[in-house]
């Protein structure tokens, strides 16, 4: 979980490199506490640094919503591009609203070691800014409620960061999980049932499983480690997507009578590339700010190491995929290379701090290799995953989580497995139930005719590229 320091010491695991001793630092509060006797002003500086880290990380992760939108827009066919754009901006909006209404309190209000948090509606910031008179001058000061419910002046040292900055940062993560789902079930899912699923996922499913680890619930108590969410965010999105894909079935014509796969190439590979780059840059916020603290040498070093590891895992995932596809198909598959970079990112997300760069490279490369095998495998199972989200987020998410003990000796494979399985089971089952209810009530799939004419025309009544050829207008100029 994110609020206590892991007190574990690591032994270096990658030979041959100049290795260093790492310790996973998960938290700010203790780190602050241990800095010897600081003056008030210093605690305030740390407070500002921590807040700033959340805000920078937050806008970077928010930017990932654009990355998912572009990646998915590039990988669906032209007739579904406008609708996938709408789904992505819509689900990002819904995720924020649900996390405000229900999610955050549910996730971070859980009791220590607990299983489910309180259903308190409407999150609000814990600080109050007030004007008070100091030496005859009006001054703005921050207040909080103490345990007795009295307003007391905020002591930055005792707090860590502005509560809204943390809320903002946690909120953008929820949207990531939801974005994963939209890519898998694209081109055939009905718009509003999909949005309803997002409401449940972001308001209930995600926060409940999230509370187990980051909310200091039972998985955290057990020693499970998932630094920035290989399992909590990426696999969670993947499991929810898998349940959806199984219930909704493949796109018309995707698998022919003899079980052969008929590729349905996406509309625009440069958009897909752009989306991948956006996700990559956003991931620095995703992993880096998950250190949750910046205002000390130790935390600054940690964030810097995370940046370097995150980048190198992605680079290794990308190169591994380029090499693998060249070897296997004699040609290099760009869409696989994009997925490979993303798989590298997902893989390192469970533990971006403790690996040396060399270890990060290995972890990311394995993630990339996994994608090359996972994509055809899902096709063999006739699970039609339009953008490869299952291979990238679910498979590499599991790999990344299971790989944590290689570099973080405070963790164990068993505990990691328990975490992966319990979260997977919970998310898959609840998602399956929700998709099923939607299927039998509203229906989750477009009619065959709608699917064939495209979801853009069916759901939006518009086209993504409405001009015919080079721009002859359907209506006179």
């Amino acid at each position, binding site marked *: 979980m994110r609020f206590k320091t892991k007190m574990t010491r690591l032994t270096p695991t990658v030979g041959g490199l100049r290795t260093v001793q790492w310790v996973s630092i998960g938290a700010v509060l203790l780190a602050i506490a241990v800095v010897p006797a600081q003056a008030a002003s210093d605690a305030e500086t740390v407070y500002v640094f921590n807040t700033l880290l959340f805000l920078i990380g937050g806008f970077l992760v928010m930017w990932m919503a654009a990355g998912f939108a572009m990646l998915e827009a590039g990988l669906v066919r032209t007739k579904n591009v406008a609708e996938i754009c709408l789904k992505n901006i819509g689900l990002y909006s819904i995720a924020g609203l649900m996390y405000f209404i229900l999610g955050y309190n549910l996730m971070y209000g859980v009791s220590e070691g607990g299983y489910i948090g309180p259903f308190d509606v409407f999150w609000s910031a814990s600080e109050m800014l007030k004007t008070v008179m100091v030496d005859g001058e009006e001054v703005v000061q921050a207040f909080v409620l103490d345990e007795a419910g009295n307003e007391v002046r905020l002591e930055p040292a005792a707090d860590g960061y502005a509560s809204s900055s943390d809320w903002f940062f946690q909120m953008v993560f929820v949207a990531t999980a939801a974005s994963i789902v939209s890519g898998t079930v694209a081109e055939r899912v009905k718009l509003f049932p999909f949005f309803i699923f997002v409401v449940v996922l972001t308001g209930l499913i995600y926060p409940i499983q999230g509370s187990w680890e980051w909310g200091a619930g039972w998985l955290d108590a057990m020693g499970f480690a998932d630094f920035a969410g290989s399992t909590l965010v990426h696999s969670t999105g993947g499991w929810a997507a898998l349940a959806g894909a199984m219930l909704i079935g493949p796109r018309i014509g995707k698998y022919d009578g003899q079980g052969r796969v008929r590729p349905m190439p996406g509309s625009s590979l440069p958009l897909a590339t752009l989306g991948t780059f956006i996700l990559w840059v956003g991931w620095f916020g995703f992993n880096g700010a998950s250190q949750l603290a910046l205002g000390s040498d130790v935390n600054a070093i940690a964030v810097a190491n995370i940046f370097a590891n995150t980048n190198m895992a992605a680079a290794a995932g990308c190169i591994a995929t380029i090499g693998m596809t060249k070897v296997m198909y004699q040609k290099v598959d760009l869409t696989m290379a994009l997925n490979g970079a993303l798989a590298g990112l997902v893989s390192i997300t469970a533990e971006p701090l403790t690996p040396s760069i060399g270890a990060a490279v290995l972890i990311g490369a394995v993630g990339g290799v996994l994608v090359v095998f996972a994509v055809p495998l899902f096709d063999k199972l006739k699970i039609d995953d339009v953008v490869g989200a299952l291979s990238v987020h679910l498979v590499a998410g599991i790999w990344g989580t299971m790989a944590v003990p290689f570099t973080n000796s405070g963790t164990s494979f068993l505990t990691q497995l328990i975490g992966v399985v319990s979260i997977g089971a919970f998310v898959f089952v609840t998602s399956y139930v929700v998709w099923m209810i939607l299927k039998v009530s509203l229906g989750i799939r477009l009619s065959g005719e709608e699917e064939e004419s495209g979801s853009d025309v069916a759901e939006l009544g518009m086209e993504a590229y409405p001009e*015919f*050829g*080079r*721009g*002859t*207008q359907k*209506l*006179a*100029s």
Partner: protein
Amino acid sequence: MNLIIAVIKPFKLEAVREALTGLGIAGMTVTEVQGYGRQKGQTEIYRGAEYEVSFLPKVKIEIAVASDMADQVIEAIATAARTGQIGDGKIFCLDIGKAVRIRTNEAGADAL
């Protein structure tokens, strides 16, 4: 039956479609094409190098009609598509030996 092929300026498509609907013509097939003719293309510049764009965007309309309608249709298209400016386009009339409506297998004039 005749197949009438008209190459017109793109922004005249709607006017032509309306004129034909006025004649009771129920169907046509439209293709985006590039035309080369007396109308000169514009000179474009790309990174310091000028070049002549010799082809201009046009729209090609194909209409199958009963032979007795052909002249009327040609007339209507010509009138609707005319701007009097160079590049207005051409109309060609060809013979159709056989026509079939796929949905019903109707043949001949009934297919149109």
